[in-house]
Each structure stands twice: as C-alpha cells, then as structure tokens.
C-alpha cells in the first residue's frame, strides 16, 4: 500500500531556533526522505510564496496567499510504501513538525489500475 504523509507545520514553529538548530531539523527530514520505505517527498517553500486559484463562472480567480488562513500550514509531504499503517505512523511521528505544534496526516493513496 502507498501512504501520503501530509506535513502541517505550526505557523512560526521555527522562529525560536538558531540556524544550527534549523539545519539539524532539516537533516531529520533529509534522513526520513532517504528511509528505504519512502518513495517520494518534497518540502514546499514558505506560505508567503503561495498563490491560490479558483474558477467561478468560467473565470479564473487568482489570490495572493494560501487556500485559507490557518494556524497550521501545509509544508511538505512524503509518499511511502508499506504493508500497513504502523510503518506510516512510525515515520510520521519522526517528522519534526509533529512534535513542534504541527501534525502529520496519513492517508492511503488511491491505487490506480496498472
């Protein structure tokens, strides 16, 4: 089965950290990315770089900012291959965001016919 780990970060979670500490946190994500069970992953640039698109009455509406103003912001994702959800839970718990006021949502991917 494939699972998506959707990483939500608490706004401003990294503010209290020094550069060295932030590098250490990035290193944790880097290590996770290279766990043999992880098949894909990416970190998104900060929420200030977000642009949101909606289409209403055939008109494309473009907004500066994320889809909604939330306390937790989508920051990145991993895709992992595993037999069951316990592996996903273990990896999700190791994401720094989860212990720094954010959360990680685990969702199985829809299996497409090969």
């Amino acid at each position, binding site marked *: *089965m494939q*699972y998506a780990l959707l990483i939500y970060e608490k706004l401003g979670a990294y503010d209290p950290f020094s550069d060295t500490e932030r590098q250490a946190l990035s290193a944790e994500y880097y290590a996770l990315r290279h766990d043999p069970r992880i098949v894909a992953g990416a970190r998104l640039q900060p929420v200030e770089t977000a642009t949101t698109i909606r289409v209403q009455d055939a008109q494309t509406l473009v907004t500066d900012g994320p889809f909604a103003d939330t306390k937790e912001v989508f920051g990145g994702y991993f895709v992992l291959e*595993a*037999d*069951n*959800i*316990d592996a996903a*839970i273990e990896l999700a718990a190791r994401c720094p965001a989860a212990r720094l006021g954010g959360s990680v949502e685990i969702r*199985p991917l829809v*299996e497409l016919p090969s």
Partner: protein
Amino acid sequence: MLASLIGFLGDFDLAEDAVQEAFAIAAERWPRDGTPNNPGAWLVTTARNRAIDRARRERTLEAKTRLLQMAAEPDLPIENTVVPDERLELMFLCCHPALAKDAQVALTLRALGGLTTDEIARAFLVAPETMKRRLTRAKARIKAVGIPFRVPSEHLLPERLGAVLAVLYLIFNEGYGGRIDLAAEAIRLCRVLVALLPLESEVLGLLALMLCHDARRNARFKDGELVLLADQDRTLWDMPQIADARSVLECGLGLGQRGPYVVQAAIAVLQTEAPVDWPQVAALYAELSALTKSPVVELNRAVAIAEAGSPKAALAIVDSLALDDYPYQHSTRAELLRRLGRLTEARHAYQRAMALTTSPAEQRFLTRRLVELQ
C-alpha cells in the same frame, strides 16, 4: 476460528461470511455423516474453500488475485491442521489507535465477544442502526487504512494495551449480566494477556477485579431475584477464587503503579470482607475519581459515604451529577431519600429508575422497593 480466518483472508467481512457458511454446512452434514475427528480444522478448511469459491465469482481483480494465490498453496491435511489461536492478534487489530474508541470496543465485542449487533447497541445505550453503521465503517476503515493483523512490537505494546483492557472489561460486564460464558471468555483472555505482559499492573488489576466479581456470581440472584451485596449468602461465594483475586491484586500492587483497574480491584476485594471498611472504600473511590473523572465513580463514592454513615452528604454528591439517563442514578437517589425519610421523592426516583432499566430482575427489585415504601 474467525481470528485465524481473518488472518488468512485479510478481510473481516469475507471471513465472517465464510464462517457462517461453514457452520451452515456443518449443521446440515454432521448429523447425517457424523462429526469429524477434528471439527475445528474441518470448519476452517471448509470456510477457506467457501471463501476461495467466492473469489472466483468476485469482480474485483485485486481480491480475486489475492485469494486465488492463496488457493494455489498446498492444502494442509485436515487431520493435522492445528487451528492457531490468533485471538490476541485480532484483539490488537480491533483495538488499534487508528480506529475511533467506540469502534474499537464494538469491533472486539463483535469479533471476539460473540455479541450480536443488537446486544452491543444495548450495552452502549445507542440505537441498533447506529451500531450497525459503526461496525460497517470500522471494517471499511481497517481495509482502507491498512490496519495490521499483528501483536504490536514491544515498545508499542503498553500503550496499545489500554483500549484492549477496557474492551475486555466491557465483555465481562455483559457476561456478568447473565451470559456467563462471556464472563469466562473475558477472564480467559485476560489471563493470556497476563502471561504476555506479566509486569503490567493494570492487566493484573483487571484480572483481579473480574475474578472477584465473578466469584460472587452465584449469590447475586436468589430464585431469579436480585440480592444486594450486604444481603448475599457468602456460602455461595467462590472463596478460592476470591483468594486468587486477592493474590493477583497483591502482585499488581507490588509492581508499584496504581492505575484505575488496580484501584477498582482493591475496592472489590475490600467489599468481600465482613464488615466492609466503607471509609477506606470511599477513599479508594476518591482516588479512582481523580484518575477517571467519571460521574459513575462519583455515584459509587456517594454510596460508600452513605454506607459509612452520612446519607445526607451522599445525596448532595448524587444530586450534583449529570446522569439523568442512568438508571442507577435514580435508584441510588431513591435509596438515599428513603433513608432520609423523604418517601414521596423516593417513590418518584424509583419510578424513574424503573423506566430506565432493561433487566426484568432489576425491575422486579425496584418494584419490591416501591411496595416497601407504602
């Protein structure tokens, strides 16, 4: 049997259907052909074959492929097949944290406790349709989310245990209400858990608690009528089992951790003594209340306080609780009001309790109390 099939087939509903079919075939064939030497293995093999037949008709390519792969495995000779006891794996599957708490409890009662959906609904004071939906959704979630059929690894085991214990206690209580085989099953499963986790005080606490309650089982009714603890014929108590409960409790207390089940077991054991040390019982209920924040525990604490000699203080506690749909709230109030001489109010409270009780024995008990008021 269901457990080993779920393990084999990886699908709850498929396993349940296959089991039902196998039993139906057995009911038809065994009276005619005689019972096989190894009935368990016969049933499991038959159920597996039914499931594989069904797979052939199955439309989902994925399900078909998986099941036919299993069919290709060499068939074990029926006589030598040992049906593995995978009930613990099933227990941890049903109680997995990725399932909502109420789903965990319902699923375990269904798969391991042998209760019908209606019986589970009654135990939780919900409508049968609600419970049916809850079970259906839970099974769908197990499949969709990929919840494993496995005993958790050692570092996860203690935390996964809490829900399992709660469920066992619920099974025991349903059994304690009349279906004795369920109580025995709950005790049996708890003993297995003790063997697996000998240093978890709460497992010992739960076992001691259940042994204690179960030991008084035969004294709880007389000629079909309810008998209160104070009036019970102690010669009907299983004294060796109470002694067993005591030593199990001591092991639990010796481990140093005082969780809710250990405290409840201590209360139960104290109540087997004559006379009962009610102030000590009240103190233990206070400790339990702090641990669980449960209004039902407060209700029991009030009873202990009344027995210790303060019915007025007890009534004050009972009146502060928001348990309007709970029959024992009203029966307790009624008893306290009776002791305080407020008979009209006591009558109304007994009537309210009667409207809420489902057990005929309890209804008759309350009726007798009402009659005694006159």
